[in-house]
């Protein structure tokens, strides 16, 4: 059977995945705190081909071949999104540029040390607790106070404070009176401390985060040691009245969309050519 037929079919499926991923990026062009996702492909395992069975000749080596491709991983790009002013006191944006001693990160948040090891820039996240009581991380700081006084996200998850409990304000204190200080404490309009302090979690290798939807990321159990509470000296700040814009690049997304579509089309053409070859082999070879 023609090996390339399946290779081209695999190519079509992989481009479809790429297209789906880019579409989701486009959908979330205006989602605060959204991080662009890139679909990374990988070729099928390599095979070594030998020519055998010719009388009087040793088997001849033809070469290596990969018989397909698949979308292997969806990689979130954790670079900083632009902050924009909303003026709502319940909106918060994290601006982070966390450093690792002795490492200089490039603009994509990556550095390679002398031994060739890749180090990724740590990122800061709001810590929230979903309705099931599990810890999640988010960059979407569009919060509100619910009627019980809890600081919650858009889908009702609790925002956690440094005491690892949901932040709750007593009755009579509204978000209009609350100001977030530089050390992440909430003070009321008289400058008195309310006792609530925002918990920011630093994730050492943000690539290990799994995107869960609703703006939230989670860490798998085996990666739990990558998270630590932010400490003094970490280079980040939280701004009240701002949201972090999605870091999706619309122009890049459009180009990716077209390129995925055309690559899909090319693979489709290859299948058609194989089909024509098969047609010839079946119907025309041996015709008298």
């Amino acid at each position, binding site marked *: 059977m023609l090996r390339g037929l399946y290779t081209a079919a695999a190519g079509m499926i992989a481009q479809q*995945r790429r297209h789906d991923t880019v579409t*989701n990026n486009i*959908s979330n062009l205006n*989602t605060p705190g959204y991080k662009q996702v890139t679909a990374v492909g990988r070729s099928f395992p390599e095979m070594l081909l030998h020519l055998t069975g010719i009388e009087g000749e040793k088997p001849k080596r033809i070469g290596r071949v990969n018989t397909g491709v698949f979308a292997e*991983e969806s990689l979130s790009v954790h670079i900083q999104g632009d902050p924009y002013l909303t003026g709502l006191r319940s909106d918060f944006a994290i601006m982070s540029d966390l450093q690792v001693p002795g490492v200089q990160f490039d603009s994509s948040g990556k550095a390679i040390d002398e031994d060739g090891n890749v180090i990724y820039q740590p990122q800061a996240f709001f810590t929230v607790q979903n309705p099931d009581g599990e810890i999640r991380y988010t960059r979407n700081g569009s919060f509100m*106070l*619910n009627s019980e006084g809890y600081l919650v996200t858009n889908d009702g998850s609790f925002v956690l404070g440094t005491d690892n409990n949901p932040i709750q304000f007593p009755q009579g204190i509204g978000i209009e009176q609350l100001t977030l200080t530089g050390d992440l404490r909430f003070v009321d309009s008289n400058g008195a401390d309310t006792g609530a302090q925002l918990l920011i979690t630093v994730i050492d290798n943000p690539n290990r985060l799994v995107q869960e*939807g*609703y703006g939230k990321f989670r860490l798998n159990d085996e990666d739990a040691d990558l998270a630590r509470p932010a400490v003094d000296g970490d280079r980040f700040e939280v701004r009240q009245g701002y949201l972090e814009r999605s870091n999706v690049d619309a122009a890049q997304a459009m180009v990716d969309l077209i390129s995925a579509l055309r690559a899909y089309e090319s693979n489709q053409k290859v299948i*058609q050519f194989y089909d024509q070859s098969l047609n010839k082999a079946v119907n025309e070879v041996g015709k008298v």
Partner: protein
Amino acid sequence: MNSSMINALMSMSAMQRKLDLIADNIANMNTVGFKRKTASFEDLLTTIKQQDGRFAQEGRKTPLGFTIGWGVRMTQAQLDLSQGSIQRTDNPYDLAIQGYALFEVITDDQGTRAYTRSGAFRAQLNEDGDVVVTTPEGHPVVVRDEGGAEEPLIVPAGYALQVDAMGRVSALSADGSDLQELGRLKLVEPVRPDALQAVSDNLFVVLAGVDVDAVIRDVQPDMGNSVRIIQGAHEQSNVKLETEMTELLMAQRAYQLSARALSSADTMMSLANQLRA
């Protein structure tokens, strides 16, 4: 069905809802006391295609599994209660609030309360010939007297309404010889504005089943806060056309991009159909 199509569809309907919200804001640009609503977006649940251990190849950066997102939704609309600009009208029944507070009005005979920022009140005569101060729809404004009792604001016949910056209401007789104290305007501060629901006629109500005291609290203009009442003035809406137009453009372009993604997904399906032409 390919997920690009569902994704683009969700995104387009979310953008459409955002456009509706912006249209509402723009339509009410000249409504007295109108407060604009804002909404942001949130990505939808992500599904993970599980992969087994053989996928953990060298060079892989992420945990096992390939995630697929399903689009975006618009989040609950939030009220932007920021101050609108004050415009003088010199009508004694026009009251404007400066600062963070709402008027309280009575909407039916059972004494149900609603809250409004619009101070464009009217004078309505009751059967005794006295003037009841109401909203344009006829809901009386609440005042609180010395003893703390809450009642509709009624100005005796032949008297003129006077309201000072601290919300103290009095009635002055036509010849200026008699001044009657009528109490103070009842003002409330929304502590949990997200539990307030905007209903028609520029009114807000506390959602059913929610503790009223948790959502609002009494506030009186005094030296300790910046709430003031201005008589003879309107508060304009806080809608800024530039902001709304910018948001409109962004929503429209995002809609266009999603429509492109949809037509591109359509082309892909057509290509798959033509595999065996």
